[in-house]
């Protein structure tokens, strides 16, 4: 029974809970047990909120028993990335600087999940302040890839994706600044979606890079991701950059895609994302996916987006610049860590000592890069130029979407690497986000759907699907059709 519950999809669980076949408490408990059993090895969670989860599950069960209409995912458990504030529940963002902080408010995403009756199991591990591609930068130790515990689960949202792959949760929330949902999705064999920028409110998402950060759904199936997408998306007056437009019909698109017909759909293969640096197994998996999409009726051709070559350097100026300012507030004055306040030191000294002790090396590196890039005399050459590249990338996307409905590429150049392998080589680490960053810079939606396992190392590979802004449903349709054609590819044994 427990085994069935943890392997079921969110859609299946919701149906069972809402029909009274199984209670949300049972489903929740099964997942809490699974976490207790496996998280010593995986370390996907930073905080498990057993009481809060069971209380929410009981509320849903009572509502179901009372015959109340409940929302589509009511009673289904979810793992929440520790970057979203949760009232009264620790929110560390993977950093020592926020250790012990209990936020006095819920993020909009948190609030929407609670209102929809979703059961929040706990908060998942992440690279500190979402800076990283391996979750090794967490101040609380790395998360391990359930497919191979010696390998990274991707990052920054490694905890969320690993919890899905480890069957600790059927649903998770991630945030994607340069690929932090899609890359972990790819390397753990799960689905990860970065919606259109502004599609999901950022209120309560502890900022890394404001103009790039976007929360999105993570799941093991495309339909589950779509169901979660519709719960968290929508205009929010608390976020000025939130889009005041109807939520794209992603659930309908996912269901439509399951019919398996993509005839007439034009798919562009981004030529910039292939060749040198791309693992053979990843390339072969991608080619197989292209063939399957053709069989489903799609028309596929190459498309060149030359500015994408400059996406990585532009990203590594814009994101650190914004982070240098966003992270200035962590100064020991109001919340979080406070170091050296022994009555003899000045405010500046306490601020400085706290930041020195509270931030990890990667966060410090980016604060320094960003501070430099924004300084007077360098702004135009760095931040200014990067913004121009951003415009060019947006134009490349627009041009490509004149001829194609969606674009595709591998999600990452390689499968999951070994823990520690790239820890001392930031450039190698940054390259994990090569294919995912353009969509962040352009604000367009993109997702990763598993394309099976690499024939070299048996590790999962991801197929990235990109769509124009507010056309999120297009990629769900393609992903669902592809997912059905691809078939099952097994799961990790823990």
């Amino acid at each position, binding site marked *: 029974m427990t085994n069935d519950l943890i392997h079921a999809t969110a859609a299946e669980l919701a149906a069972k809970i809402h029909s009274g076949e199984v209670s949300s408490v049972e489903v929740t408990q099964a997942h809490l047990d699974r976490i207790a059993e496996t998280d010593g090895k995986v370390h996907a969670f930073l905080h498990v909120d057993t009481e809060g989860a069971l209380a929410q599950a009981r509320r849903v069960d009572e509502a179901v028993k009372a015959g109340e209409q409940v929302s589509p995912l009511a009673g289904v458990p979810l793992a929440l990335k520790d970057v*979203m504030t949760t009232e009264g529940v620790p929110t560390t963002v993977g950093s020592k600087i926020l250790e012990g902080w209990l936020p006095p408010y819920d993020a909009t995403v948190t609030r929407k999940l609670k209102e929809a009756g979703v059961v929040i199991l706990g908060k998942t591990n992440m690279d500190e302040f979402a800076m990283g591609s391996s979750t090794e930068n967490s101040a609380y130790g790395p998360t391990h890839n359930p497919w191979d515990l010696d390998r990274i689960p991707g990052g920054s949202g490694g905890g969320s994706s690993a919890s899905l792959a480890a069957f600790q949760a059927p649903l998770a929330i991630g945030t994607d600044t340069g690929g932090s949902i899609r890359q972990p999705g790819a390397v753990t064999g799960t689905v990860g979606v970065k919606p259109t920028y502004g599609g999901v409110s950022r209120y309560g998402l502890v900022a890394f890079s404001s103009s790039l950060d976007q929360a999105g759904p993570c799941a093991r199936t495309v339909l589950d991701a779509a169901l979660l997408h519709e719960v968290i998306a929508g205009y929010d007056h*608390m976020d*000025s950059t939130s889009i005041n437009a109807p939520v794209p019909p992603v659930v309908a698109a996912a269901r439509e895609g399951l019919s398996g017909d993509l005839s007439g759909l034009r798919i562009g293969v981004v030529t910039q994302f292939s060749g040198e640096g791309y693992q053979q197994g990843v390339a072969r998996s991608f080619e197989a996916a292209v063939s399957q999409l053709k069989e489903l009726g799609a028309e596929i051709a190459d498309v060149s987006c030359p500015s994408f070559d400059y996406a990585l350097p532009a990203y590594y100026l814009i994101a650190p610049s914004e982070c240098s300012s966003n992270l200035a507030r962590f100064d020991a004055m109001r919340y979080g860590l406070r170091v050296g306040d022994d009555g003899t030191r000045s405010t500046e000294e306490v601020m400085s000592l706290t930041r020195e002790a509270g931030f990890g090396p990667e966060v410090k590196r980016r604060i320094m890069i960003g501070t430099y890039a924004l300084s007077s005399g360098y702004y135009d050459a760095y931040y200014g130029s990067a913004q121009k590249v951003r415009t060019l990338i947006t134009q490349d996307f627009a041009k490509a979407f004149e001829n194609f409905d969606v674009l595709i590429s591998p999600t990452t150049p390689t499968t999951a690497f070994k823990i520690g392998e790239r820890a001392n080589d930031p450039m190698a680490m940054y390259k994990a986000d090569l294919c995912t960053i353009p969509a962040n810079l352009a604000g367009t939606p993109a997702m990763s759907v598993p394309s099976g396992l690499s024939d070299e190392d048996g590790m999962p590979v991801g197929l990235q699907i990109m769509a124009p802004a507010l056309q999120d449903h297009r990629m769900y349709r393609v992903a669902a059709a592809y997912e059905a054609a691809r078939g099952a590819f097994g799961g990790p044994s823990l």
Partner: protein
Amino acid sequence: MTALVELMDYDEVIEKYDPVLGLEVHVELHTNTKMFCGCANVFGGEPNTNTCPICLGLPGALPVVNAKAIESAMRIGLALNCEIAEWCRFARKNYFYPDMPKNFQTSQYDEPIAFNGWLDVTLDDGEVIRVEIERAHMEEDTGKSLHVGGATGRIHGAEHSLLDYNRAGVPLIEIVTKMIPGTKERAPEVARAYVTALRDLLKALDVSDVRMDQGSLRCDANVSLSPKTTGALGTRTETKNVNSLRSVERAVRFEMTRQAAVLESGGEVTQETRHFDESSGSTSPGRKKETAEDYRYFPEPDLVPIAPSREWVEELRLTLPELPWERRARIQKDWNLTDEVLRDLVNAGALDLIIATVEAGAKPDEARPWWVSYLAQQANTRGVELTDLPITPAQVARVIELVNTGALTNKLAREAVNGVLEGEGGPDEVVEKRGLKVVSDDSALEKAVDEALAAQPDVAQKIRDGKVQAAGAIVGAVMKATKGQADAARVREIVLARCS
């Protein structure tokens, strides 16, 4: 402790140098809510009660621009004859300070909402100077630091500091002038007159409380001296903490004499922020910064650009009230005032009060004397501005009405006003409490007159003999007996009737 500072005689300064002014005024808007969140925007209040995750800069919180603040900024811009930007953004000004929760201030930078305007400023003698406005931009206020344990209340020597974030995120408009050259010996006066004119304008627009004493209007005065021999621009200092109109004038004057003495001794003026001390009337250097401040401005990514439509701008232009100078011109014509009288009323800060009193029902000729003489004296005695007297124009109008209906004599009216100033309530309440009603009962007056005549038979005889002027002594005695609550004219009539 203020170190001794060499100063040059003012006339000598003017002989040798031309002062150049630049004024930056920060205005706190009195919108209901703060600039980027829904917290109440009120002065005072228990520390840290008007705060929320947004104005406390908690992790994850995001700003949303207050539309009313944008509207106020645009109205200020229009009243200052500025152009209104078709598209503009907020930026982040990055620096660490504990009273700034995010360690960056969300402020406009190179894209202000309003720019290129002017304000005509009338000096005490009626001369009009046009001050060019560089820009008016929106920003948020910081919290307040209270430094405890030091001698000066400043951070130097303090044992610890307390932070109150009630003010954090209050909407501010910063209005910056272009360089104001050519004011010569009148530079201090021009500075004061500019801030006064701006204050009156902002009051007319009803966008701010414009209380310098409460910090809702703050002025930073930039002063430099240009040697007459070379005409080269001098190094400027920026003086902060200038908290009254008089201080604006004093601070500018002090800086002129200080800088001239520095230059005269062969030294160089240091470009720095200085702090005005109200009690000594002098300025002293702010804390020295070890490194040049680099605010690393960049566009605020959490806010979308503001692009006010031209229709909106024109709509707002139509909402502009009668501006102070238009109002003055109208009043001068309507009340038939000479330039001189008008100027005196303006300089005394009495014009708006008189207008308000007239609007409350009094005639201009009745309202004027109250404000320019009796109430002006009271303000002077109390050491406050006329506007800060605890009496409203409506209350003055009511006192005038009570005089006109005969309920109060002029003397009683002044006593009623005193009661209002003492906080005893409104005019009617004071009249009631102090028992100030005119004794209009003739029989009571007749009785008092008879008693007075009986007490002074020789005077009574004189009146009967036709020496009418002797009646004054009897009237005086009756007024004394009725504690001034009788109408003296009526008493006189009764006296004459009794003695005829």
